[in-house]
């Protein structure tokens, strides 16, 4: 009887672990506003993918709102492509920030014969999905996938309107060196994003003469970091870098202080959010993080976008909404120049994009990355992100600190 119980217990534990991954929510299609029926028009369906459920749902909703704003503006303009009136329609899908789900919804969009894809939000879902879009010849513009691998696979359908992690890791590594520290410890959450950013940071930190004294790992569901932090404490690292998202970063920075670790904390865009400051509390104060791009206030079209967005949706921009807006505009602009909404016809035009977007100037290099990838460093201060400096190929930053409320 003993052995039988063991088998049952084990298989139950396994079934249980699987069931946790299997919770699905029905994707909510976003209805485009009905346009008056005048003359026959072409409906252009644009896929949008981001996590609409789970801990990153607030970021997914933000992207979707940005894309929706762009679609509504395009429809209001009464755009004509190749002599026919076009109506854009956003088909929104939820990938739950899960790579497996990412490929499922990608296939769904391909089967639905969408004309282009805006997404996905996470690198971990964007990279596996990009193979499917490439095979289907479907152009994909990600507003926020920062892992360099995404555009390095040789897929001519893959573009992003955001600086990648090579650029961000480099800036963060150099920023760490400027803080006067000699030794750093690196923690990542083993996702494509976290690991990729940590790798680029490591390269840049070592190039800047810093010594990496510890490489530790966690996962994107963990809450306890005391064991790895204790290990880091023993290495006497002067700075702890975290490659991962806010839901882990917040408790992590708090537990650092509980263990009496005096090291500074530094992170990328995943922890540069209000959620991080909520979870980290006072422990986050005075630490630094970075975001790709330039603060909206410093861009020609930024403040206008911000007020339009807030007037329409009644909530503040979280993170990547301007980039999602630009991703839609890049696709529409290429269709216009090609005089066609067919993927095969307008795809070559995306590579030739020269667009002044709300998030900055958009021009692609031969890989589909932005040619000018600016990175901005912020400091956490009493629950707000304070502007520190903008580095990388962007317009010069003003001297006066600009408070960026996100």
């Amino acid at each position: 009887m003993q052995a039988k119980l063991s088998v049952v217990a084990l298989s139950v534990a396994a079934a249980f672990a699987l069931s946790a991954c299997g919770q699905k929510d029905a994707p909510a299609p976003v209805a485009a506003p009905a346009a008056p029926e005048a003359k026959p028009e072409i409906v252009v369906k644009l896929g949008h993918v981001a996590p609409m459920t789970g801990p990153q749902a607030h970021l997914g909703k933000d992207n979707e709102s940005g894309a929706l704003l762009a679609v509504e503006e395009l429809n209001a303009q009464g755009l004509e492509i190749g002599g026919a009136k076009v109506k854009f329609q956003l088909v929104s899908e939820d990938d739950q920030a899960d790579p497996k789900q990412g490929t499922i919804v990608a296939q769904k969009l391909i089967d639905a014969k969408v004309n282009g894809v805006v997404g996905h939000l996470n690198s971990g879902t964007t990279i596996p999905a990009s193979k499917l879009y490439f095979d289907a010849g479907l152009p994909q513009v990600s507003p926020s996938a920062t892992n360099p691998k995404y555009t390095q696979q040789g897929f001519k359908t893959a573009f992003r309107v955001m600086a990648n992690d090579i650029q961000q890791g480099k800036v963060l590594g150099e920023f760490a060196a400027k803080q006067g520290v000699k030794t750093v410890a690196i923690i990542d959450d083993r996702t494509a994003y976290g690991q990729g950013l940590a790798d680029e940071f490591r390269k840049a930190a070592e190039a800047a003469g810093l010594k990496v004294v510890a490489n530790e790992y966690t996962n994107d569901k963990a809450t306890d970091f005391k064991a790895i932090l204790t290990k880091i404490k023993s290495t006497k690292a002067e700075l702890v870098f975290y490659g991962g998202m806010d839901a882990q970063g917040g408790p992590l920075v708090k537990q650092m202080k509980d263990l009496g670790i005096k090291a500074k904390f530094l992170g990328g865009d995943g922890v540069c959010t209000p959620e991080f400051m909520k979870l980290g509390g006072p422990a986050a104060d005075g630490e630094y993080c970075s975001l790709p791009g330039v603060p909206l206030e410093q861009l020609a079209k930024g403040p206008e976008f911000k007020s339009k967005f807030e007037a329409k949706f009644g909530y503040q921009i979280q993170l990547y909404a301007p980039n999602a807006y630009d991703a839609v505009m890049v696709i529409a602009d290429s269709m216009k120049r090609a005089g066609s909404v067919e993927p095969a016809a307008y795809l070559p035009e995306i590579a030739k994009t020269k667009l002044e977007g709300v998030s900055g100037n958009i021009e692609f290099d031969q890989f589909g990355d932005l040619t000018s990838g600016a990175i901005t460093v912020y400091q956490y201060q009493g629950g707000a992100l304070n502007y520190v400096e903008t580095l990388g190929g962007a317009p010069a930053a003003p001297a006066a600190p600009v408070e960026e409320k996100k």
Partner: protein
Amino acid sequence: MDIFLQQIINGLVQGSIYALVALGYTMVYGIMGLINFAHGEVVMIGALISITVTSTLAAAGMPLGLAGLFGLVAAMLTCMALGWSLERIAYRPLRGSPRLTPLITAIGMSIVLQNLAMIFWGRNYMTFPPLLPKVNFEFAGTHFTLVQVVIVLLSAALMAGLVFLVYRTKLGMAMRATAQNPAVASLMGVNINRVIASAFVIGSALAAVAGVMVGSYYEIAHYQMGFMLGLKAFTAAVLGGIGNLAGAMAGGILLGIIEALGAGYIGDFTGGFLGSHYQDIFAFIVLIVVLMFKPSGLFGEKTGDRA
């Protein structure tokens, strides 16, 4: 050395929480041979209830300490009611059916509770109000906080209370009798239904305390927090010998320490080949090894023909 000591402290705190949750598994298993997989979710409900009650009362102007106490009591009462209803709805109708049937309803209840919590409390992480003042202690190069001290002491006190209950009271005697032979116990005038219901209620009260502890330790709570914790606590119960109270406590603390030391030292021992991302795996390696070589657990005793 201070680093080693710090890892032991980390493990001890984590292990105390595992132990407290493991008691709920082991008590129910000992009496009726059922693994209540929804137990981790009871912990989660306890944490979320106490957040809601505490922050509501604190917002109404009550001092935080008192509000926290009310939150704890509310969480315990809710979880006791929940534990009782779980037994009444999901397990009692199935008593006497094959062993696998209640196991499946247990998993079903766990998913139902998770989704209910998601509907009530939303999908985002919630911050737990700091119930205890932030006091940091330093001892021989190690750091620990008041919350950690309270967790270890409170767990120890609750476990001692439970042992007293089981071995020194009439209800405890009835529980042990039911565990040995339900049919005979019932012939001797023991109300089996009441005994089993009280095992669920007591286990759920302990789970509620564990939930408040986990919440105030990490200062966050989430509708999925009970899932992994439940699995780990189940592992701890099996490690110590499921059905055995002392085994659950020892198993919990041992598991906490194994995890902390594992995460802290595996990189050094394997020359960087395996890293700290294998932290969660230790619990399950331990489970598999114990089941393979000593299925009755470290402290496992022959509990009649139950297991």
